[in-house]
């Protein structure tokens, strides 16, 4: 059970596939339009339960409780050897009077 007042993330369906805009391409048209919003939980609730939260602008939002203390995990990713090769080719070309592949 997650306590009232906890910082959480709620998920909801904004439009079901049959409610979507007529111009969306086929692959997207078969899917719902989904939404994630963060806020403070307004009542004790368990993960996966339908509940309410108060957002930072003070709005009340409803949805399924999908995360407690949602954070960020994006970074710089795995080593990309092609970027090191790019740097080396740039430095080499800059150091030469006439670059190799003129």
């Amino acid at each position: 059970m997650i306590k009232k007042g906890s910082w959480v993330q709620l998920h909801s369906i904004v439009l079901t596939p049959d409610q979507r805009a007529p111009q969306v391409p086929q692959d997207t048209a078969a899917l719902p339009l989904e939404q994630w919003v963060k806020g403070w939980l307004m009542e004790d609730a368990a993960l996966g339960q339908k509940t309410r939260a108060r957002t930072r602008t003070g709005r009340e939002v409803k949805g399924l409780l999908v995360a407690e203390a949602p954070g960020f995990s994006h970074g710089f990713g795995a080593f990309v050897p092609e970027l090191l090769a790019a740097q080396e080719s740039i430095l080499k070309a800059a150091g030469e009077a006439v670059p190799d592949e003129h």
Partner: protein
Amino acid sequence: MSIEKSYQAVMARRNEIMKSAVGLDYSRFESGGIAFDYEAMMASPGLDIMEVKAIQADYGVGDTPLVELRRISALARKYARPGFGARILIKDEAANPSGSFKARRAALSVHVAQKMGFKGVITATSGNYGAAVASCCAKAGLHCIVVQECFDSKGRGQPEIVEKARKCEAFGAEVIQLTVGPELFYAFLLLLEETGYFNASLYTPYAILGVETLGYELARQCQAQFGAMPAAVVATNAGGGNLTGTARGLIKAGCDSPVIAASVNLRGLHMASDRAFNRKSFTTGHTGFGMPFSSWPDRSDVPRSAGRPLRYMSRYVTLSQGEVFYTTEMLAVLEGMERGPAGNTSLAAAFSLARELPREALLVVQETEYTGAGKHPNAQLAFARENGVKIATGDPREEVPGESIILPSHPGQIRCQEADLTRLREGLIIRAISEAALPISEADLHFLARETRSDTAFVEGVIRKYQEEKA
């Protein structure tokens, strides 16, 4: 009374929702035909460029450095004929509080929202503009909501957009994240109705007046630092506001330099496709926005867009994703500036275009943007590889958007491709006349000539051809 919330019902209310959410009655500028009074619309806020600069200064925005890229210019010169290879200068817009030139647009929008008494501001954007609005709202003490298209149907977030969410939250904003689809606009309209907040659209006159200072400053800086006006200015083009505002600012500084548009080539990738969403490594500055917004600017979220790039564009060039990533590395290792990558689209174009200009000419790249987790080329390429996109070193001409990213094997391979400006101009004219009664008025004819930076003979030629093909 309950308000109908279906997609169709909300979209049908869009004009009345927008009228109250941007505090501007667009019908004042309409003629009843194709034409509308663009200059009257741009003058409607009643602010001259020095007043705009003063508002921006209050937010710590603007007066960014203009830096000469000596080592990059010297490298470009090695691939040019003797006597050619321009001096490349860059306006370091990453120095703005939120890390991009979008702060200029946001400062004006938030200033206006506050003056009109709005309690909060909403913006629909997955990019730097969200961070810019959130930053200015923090300084103004207004609430801020940013609505972004962030995830595919498997819940995978585009790392650059996830980073923007983090930055917006860091400025105290509420971030609403959606899966792929143009109905983001629907969710956005519902929020405007629910909250009564101001719509900080990228395409209002305020937003474009905000960019005018960029062009104005760079012309003045060129004159003061280098004793000459630019031979050309290169602008990364997506929704058209960056190019429009910059060009208008140059004119206000008495500078008639040609303005060249540059976009990343994402040909073949549908912008509203769930499958294609995480197969692109650029979230802005690309042809997926640049082409449609050039040939029809009024597809934006306001009735009449203040960003009308075909009026000011002298050329339009495209670059591959690999060329822009490569140039981003060049800026880092030769100039000590870690920026971009999307903002470096115009720099990649300049590296190629410098070869066409004499060596004393000044070629200005009018923006940089901040980089970091999620945004950095390493983050984007690692993510692309995880999503099955092939990453290789070779000939960037062989890149297929969504399938591969080819980093050049040497700088001489950076060669921008010419986009067909005539086709974009024709597209705009045909779109305009297809919804109008023919023959069109003299005023509409002149308007379309101005819209396409052409003349009435060109417009008449396109109309004739259209009618013949229709008959």
